[in-house]
């Protein structure tokens, strides 16, 4: 676009006067050209913003991978990283075995989902099918507040409230463990399960409900026999998004799972997740060192995991929308 057109576009009074009434009759051809130029400029900006999300996702992968690449293609034993439990990045003979970190992440996520899935889906069903009017509005607001509590506050709660509680209840020396982190993660991922699950139930046409009720089914029978099968895919997607959230959560698990590199045997063992390891060690490493780069390798791994989980969830949702 020429400089003249850009200047003209900025000084075009017609657009202001027109207040949405468009190019008028009798306007000179030059004016109309300016007008079209302005429109084109704005449309270009909008189109660029439109693809910004794609650019950013690629950007994230590119820049994280860029820091990881020199190590990944220069001597890191990927097999050792994924299967060895020896995480000694600071020793004279550094070993980068992230198996314990992966196991920690899996343990916390799994236990969190065991708690969050029944709670989340139950609450989604209650909000969508068993409540109405004001009650429903209030429930939704409280669940939204649950989602709004920052993860560092959850971590703080894990430290000062859950920790002594778990020590008392289970008579263990340390309350910062898989169980503590899993309870926090469950509460953190429940809102997303509820809101996506509720959307899925809402997407089932009312005619299904009416048909079932007309045959004399109770509300529960309608839900169990008609709605849950019909909304199956959406509910699955809700669970997947909850898993994605739990795997990637950082501050809460950093503060509440006890910070010890360890393959857990029981929910009362302390662990350290992939995310917590990156968060706690990145600040102490020299930029460009192997330790620094291995953290970026772990970051790339996390990115790929959550990318796959989200992609699957999206495909599943698309499946049920098309049907």
């Amino acid at each position, binding site marked *: 676009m020429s400089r003249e057109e850009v200047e003209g576009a900025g000084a075009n009074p017609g657009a202001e006067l027109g207040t949405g009434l468009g190019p008028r009759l009798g306007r000179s051809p030059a004016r109309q050209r300016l007008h079209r130029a302005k429109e084109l400029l704005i449309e270009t900006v909008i189109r660029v913003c439109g693809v910004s*999300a794609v650019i950013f996702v690629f950007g994230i992968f590119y820049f994280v991978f860029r820091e990881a690449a020199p190590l990944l293609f220069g001597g890191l034993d990927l097999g050792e990283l994924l299967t060895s439990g020896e995480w000694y990045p600071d020793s004279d003979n550094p070993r980068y075995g992230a198996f314990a970190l992966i196991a920690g992440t899996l343990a916390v996520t799994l236990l969190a989902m065991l708690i969050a899935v029944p709670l989340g889906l139950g609450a989604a069903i209650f909000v969508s099918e068993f409540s109405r009017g004001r009650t429903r509005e209030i429930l939704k607001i409280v669940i939204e507040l649950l989602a709004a509590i920052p993860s*560092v506050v959850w971590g703080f709660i894990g430290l000062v409230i859950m920790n002594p509680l778990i020590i008392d209840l289970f008579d263990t020396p340390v309350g910062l463990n898989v169980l503590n982190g899993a309870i926090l993660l469950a509460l953190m991922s429940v809102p997303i399960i509820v809101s996506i699950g509720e959307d899925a139930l809402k997407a089932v046409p009312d005619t299904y409900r009416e048909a079932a009720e007309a045959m004399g089914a109770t*509300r*529960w029978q309608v839900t169990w026999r008609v709605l849950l099968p019909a909304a199956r895919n959406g509910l699955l997607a809700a669970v997947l998004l909850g898993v994605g959230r739990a795997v*990637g959560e950082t*501050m809460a698990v950093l503060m509440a799972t006890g910070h010890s590199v360890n393959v857990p045997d029981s929910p009362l063992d302390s662990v350290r997740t992939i995310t917590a390891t990156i968060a706690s060690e990145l600040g102490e490493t020299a930029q460009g060192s192997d330790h620094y780069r291995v953290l*970026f390798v772990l970051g790339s791994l996390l990115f790929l995991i959550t990318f796959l989980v989200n992609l699957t969830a999206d495909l599943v949702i698309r499946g049920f929308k098309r049907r």
Partner: protein
Amino acid sequence: MGVFATSATARRRHRTQKLAFVVLLGVTVLLILPVLAILGMLVYRGAPALSLEFLFSEPVRGMTAGGIWPAIVGTMWLVGVSLAISAPIGVLAAVYLNEYAGDTWYTRVIHLAIVNLAGVPSIVHALFGVGAFVLFFEFGTSILSASLTLAIMTLPVIIASTKESLSAVPMSFREACWNVGATRWQTIRHVVLPNSIAGILTGVILQVSRAAGETAPIIFTGAAVFVPFLPSSVNDQTMALSMHLFTLSTQVQNVPQEITYGTALVLVGLVVLINGVSIVIRSRIRRRRKW
């Protein structure tokens, strides 16, 4: 048996129905109770620490005394700058998706990217911020780097809620405008956006609340444990409320309990207050909407 007498099956169905209701209600209450308990606990333990002096003075004696003013100011900087970046991009992206794009593979890719952007772990956003803004673009650890990272992380929030409010504007509004000869952009600028401004505002407010609470993305990109002065430009490092809470509860010994609780209460209070505003705005729009 009479026509209106209840059969055994009917009674059993009724019992199951009641049981299901009670169980589901119990599950929901089980979710709500922790929220209330946590908020109550924070207020109970944190409120005694709150005072004008706590809010408006600096931490002293290795952060074991004094207030949290630099952290509050820092959070405002981070939120303000990230908002200035993500709001225009997010709103225009939503305009593109709702007003320009059709249902093509291309649009689907964009949707997928937005979902993924929302799903990328916060610590990966942090690594991205370090790799891209701190190192590659050489912004250093600064408010600018941290805010850019926050902006990209919270972009999906603005896009999603803007898009929702844009799609709530009836098609007939646009058609009426096109019919008097307005161009696409004129229609958007003078009809679509003014009619969805409240919804856009809700998204912006949610972005603010999200950005204010995030910790992981700012630790390595611009937030510092302690900075003895208030930031004066986007090139400075800064303290932040979320980071301060993390520092107080894990990095510093012998912090009096009420200071940590007070900090947590201020952070949660801020976030809940901001969310409350967005909830009020949203319910107002719903009530006032005429179409």
